[in-house]
């Protein structure tokens, strides 16, 4: 446990020295603040931020996560020559990246929200929750890929393909399925399909906060009924957690067997 904390601490030092984090914070901060200054109403700011959150966070997390893992190669080899468990090292690297990334997002978006709109704005918490969850999910996926693939270029290429799949292609496939099976009742299917893509899951959780009027049709009613009650929220949170835990576990399994 202490080794884990030590590794996380070292990571934090290392990352905070780089300029990446300052830029990432500044982008979120200026964007949120700017949207408030130009747009005004917190609802619209949340909506605009939602697109950024769903687009940028997965991309940055997955690309930066892979690069980070490849760059830590020598550090890993050094530490593995010491009597340090691989669990501690892997989780240390993972948490050492996700914790600062999440913190940066929370600061960049949270602070402007606080002084422009107050923290009790509807949809604010869900926006933060989805942003943080997506950071964790896509960093985990990045690590998994980086462990599997020795070659940098191949690894980064794979992460971008994976991002493209979740961010864009998956929805295209859903649309295709919906029209191919038009004659059947599809509401339950859409509900299930939404659980298999963390970006869609985050998007729907946010939609239920913002676009309530349009979602009052049968599909929307079904979604808000499902995600609105305790069971549905539990399923959504569980699904997001599964999306974090599975790649972390798979990544660790590959990492523990990897021959450095």
């Amino acid at each position, binding site marked *: 446990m202490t080794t884990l904390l030590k590794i996380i601490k070292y990571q934090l030092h290392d990352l905070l020295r780089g300029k990446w984090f300052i830029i990432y914070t500044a982008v979120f901060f200026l964007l949120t603040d700017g949207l408030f200054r130009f747009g005004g109403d917190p609802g619209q700011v949340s*909506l605009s931020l939602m697109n950024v959150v769903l687009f940028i966070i997965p991309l940055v997390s997955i690309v930066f996560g892979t690069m980070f893992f490849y760059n830590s190669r020598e550090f890993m080899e050094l530490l593995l020559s010491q009597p340090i468990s691989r669990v501690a090292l892997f989780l240390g690297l993972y948490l050492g990246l996700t914790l600062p990334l999440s913190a940066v997002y929370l600061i960049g978006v949270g602070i402007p929200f606080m002084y422009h709109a107050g923290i009790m704005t509807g949809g604010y918490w869900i926006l933060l929750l989805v942003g943080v969850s997506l950071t964790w999910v896509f960093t985990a996926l990045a690590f998994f890929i980086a462990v599997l693939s020795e070659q940098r270029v191949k690894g980064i290429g794979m992460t971008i393909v994976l991002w493209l799949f979740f961010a864009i292609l998956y*929805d295209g496939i*859903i649309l295709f399925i*919906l029209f191919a099976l038009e004659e059947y009742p599809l509401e339950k299917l859409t509900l299930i399909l939404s659980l298999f893509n963390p970006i869609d899951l985050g998007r729907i959780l946010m939609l239920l906060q913002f676009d309530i009027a349009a979602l009052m*049709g049968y*599909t929307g009613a079904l979604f808000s009924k499902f995600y609105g009650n305790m069971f549905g929220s539990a399923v959504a949170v569980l699904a997001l957690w599964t999306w974090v835990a599975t790649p972390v576990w798979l990544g660790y399994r590959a990492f523990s067997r990897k021959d450095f």
Partner: protein
Amino acid sequence: MMSSGLHAGLVQVGANYPQTTISQGLEVSTPGDTLMVHSGTYRERALVVPHQLTLIGQNNPVIDGNFEGEILTVTADNVTIEGITFKGSGLSHLDENAAIRFEETQGGRVSNNIFEDNFFAVYISQSEKCLIENNIIKGQAKTESRSGNGIHLWYSKDVTIRGNYISGHRDGIYLEFVEQCVVTTNHSTKNLRYGLHFMFSNHNEYNNNQFDMNGAGVAVMYSRHVDMHNNVFADNWGSSAYGLLLKDIYDSNISDNQFSRNTVGLYSEACNRIQVEENDFENNGWAVKIMANSMDNVFTRNNFLANTFDIATNSRQNFNAFSQNYWNRYRGYDMDKDGIGDVPFRPVKLFSLLTEKNEPALMLMRSIFVEIMDLAESYLPILTPATLIDEEPLMRMNQ
């Protein structure tokens, strides 16, 4: 008998008066009398006003029908009912029991009364020149089949409905086969089905009303020459809720209304020659849904603000005109500074067309894939109606 003779034209009813019940009062009254009902609770029903009479409540008397049958039926002309609280007309699946019913009369007036927990509150049947004003009508409707309407007009003419507050009924105001009526400054809210419901009623007007939080909004069906202006349609949310639902409406006018936060602001099916002018549509799921069987409708100088979808339709064909509206989504420019954008605006998004055909596709709303598709379609329209265009979109909001 004596009292009516002594006080020519005035019959008093109350615990301390010769007539202790309203039915006694009605019995001794002669045409043209004033029947003054003093405070107290009268457990009476099936009362009939057979001749011209003015019923006035003093200090809020209550007539309690005990949820059985009808309370008061008027069969004579020029009857006025004022200042009385009516409670509990009986629920029935066979009869439309009302607190007050006007049956084949003229010149009736119902004003400043309170109606609580009635099946139907005011029922005007085959009557003319009536006035219903400033009443407070509250029901406790729970299901549509076990509830009646607040104000119900059937086969009537020249009726004015003004300044009433109606809530908790099936339909707030219901008009069927009614002509030349004016519905104005009413507030109809939290009714189970429609705030206002028109059927087969031509040449009517309703203005300055507020309809909000009703189960399905306001419905105007199978009518001609209906004028609707300065009304507020708000907060009608639900799987089949509309701010204003139009079905088979011809030659009507909808102007200066406000549609806010409805699932569908304005829904039009098989409507022809309607002028939709200078309305505000804001924060609706769909501002306007116009089915392809609607023709020759004109949408002009309306404001469309922050709706999830501005216009939705179910076909590639379009036989309606849109011009000089303000769309907050419009991103064009105005080189000659005449306040009209130089690039036409296409209010129908591909995605709204897709969801119209396949409702579950709604789950993809705001997904990046959909945004890309919409963008591509807006530059190169293939599936969206090619002629549904605002050629002259306004650069600034129409005040």
